[in-house]
């Protein structure tokens, strides 16, 4: 029996090595972007950072009006205050992320020492706890104010997620996120790719689905439906619930790897968060 399992494992290994040669992350990203550019030839490439509004002229005008008096403005201000507020030990978030916190383009990143993906939210909480402060909740509230401030100051930076080639665990984390994106889940049997790639632009109940290219650029988001700000992982959870899949833990490994893949696919676009969405 050991032998059977052993050779079955060897078989899968051989298979993944074969795939590894034929399509690495760079080739994946090029094919991914090209897919949307072909599907939506009227959308200028950089505009995919604007989500569904990049492909839905009918909704765009209203969205542009909202962005003129952005509902996330207060969050940016509150975030700035929190950012500069001294901890009990006299330090502040600025000691971890610099005076303006414009470090959006450094995340998500691979941490070879710990062998894991580190997102900006995780890094913020690690800065807090390392300084004896309480960590923030990951889906909404204070964390979105801090990231709104930091993202706002990072606007215009290019998405440039890296997968270090000297650490195979980084590629494995990416592959894990990639597999998640393309596998059908939940009782309704949908993959992220079904709604955000193959049928992007189609209507699901009352909502048109956005292209997956651009999903990593604009967080946090003020969503009218939430009437509040939310993180990317909050959104992941919402999409999972809609297909009757149990959401995973915000900032757990599953969602961090998914964010690693999703954001990598947006490489080359500009960070433009925070943003408003329906």
């Amino acid at each position, binding site marked *: 029996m050991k032998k059977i399992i052993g050779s079955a494992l060897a078989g899968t290994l051989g298979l993944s090595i074969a795939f590894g040669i034929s*399509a690495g992350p760079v080739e994946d990203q090029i094919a991914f972007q090209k897919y949307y550019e072909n599907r939506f030839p009227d959308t200028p490439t950089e505009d995919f950072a604007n989500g569904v509004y990049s492909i839905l002229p009918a909704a765009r005008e209203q969205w542009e009006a909202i962005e003129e008096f952005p509902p996330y403005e207060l969050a940016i201000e509150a975030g700035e205050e929190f950012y500069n507020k001294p901890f009990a030990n006299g330090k502040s978030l600025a000691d971890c992320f610099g005076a303006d916190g414009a470090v959006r383009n450094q995340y998500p990143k691979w941490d070879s020492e710990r062998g894991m993906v580190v997102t900006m939210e995780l890094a913020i909480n690690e800065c807090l706890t390392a300084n004896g402060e309480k960590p923030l909740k990951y889906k909404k509230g204070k964390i979105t104010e801090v990231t709104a401030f930091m993202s706002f100051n990072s606007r215009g930076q290019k998405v440039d997620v890296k997968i270090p080639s000297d650490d195979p665990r980084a590629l494995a984390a990416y592959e894990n996120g990639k597999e998640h994106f393309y596998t*059908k889940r939940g009782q309704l049997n949908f993959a992220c790719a079904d709604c955000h790639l193959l049928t992007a632009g189609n209507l699901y109940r009352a909502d048109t689905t956005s292209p997956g290219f651009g999903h990593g650029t604009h967080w946090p988001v003020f969503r009218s439906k939430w009437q509040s700000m939310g993180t990317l992982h909050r959104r992941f959870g919402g999409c999972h619930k809609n297909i009757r899949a149990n959401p995973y833990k915000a900032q757990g490994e599953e969602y961090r790897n998914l964010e690693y893949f999703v954001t990598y696919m947006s490489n080359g676009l500009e960070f433009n968060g925070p943003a408003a969405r329906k």
Partner: protein
Amino acid sequence: MKFKLKMLIVGLALTTSGAFAGNGTTAEHIEAATAAYKQVAKDTSYQWTTTVRTIKAARKALEAGDDKAARKLAHQAMDLVEATRLQAKIEGETWQMRVPK
């Protein structure tokens, strides 16, 4: 070789659900479904809200003294777990087809 492994898995699945369909208290059936849900989630990372809800409904029915309904719900939950495992298996083998080349 791979085929043999598959047979083994199918065999295991059959024996566990076979034993399950037989005797035991309704509470045990509910616990079996709960354990199976957790095991699939652990093995595959696939987890359905529907299963969680069905297990909860089974517990509630049992508490309310409706043994028959509770047992039926426990079996439904087990079916959902099996469907989840099958989904994970199919997806694990086919997802590459969806990747743009």
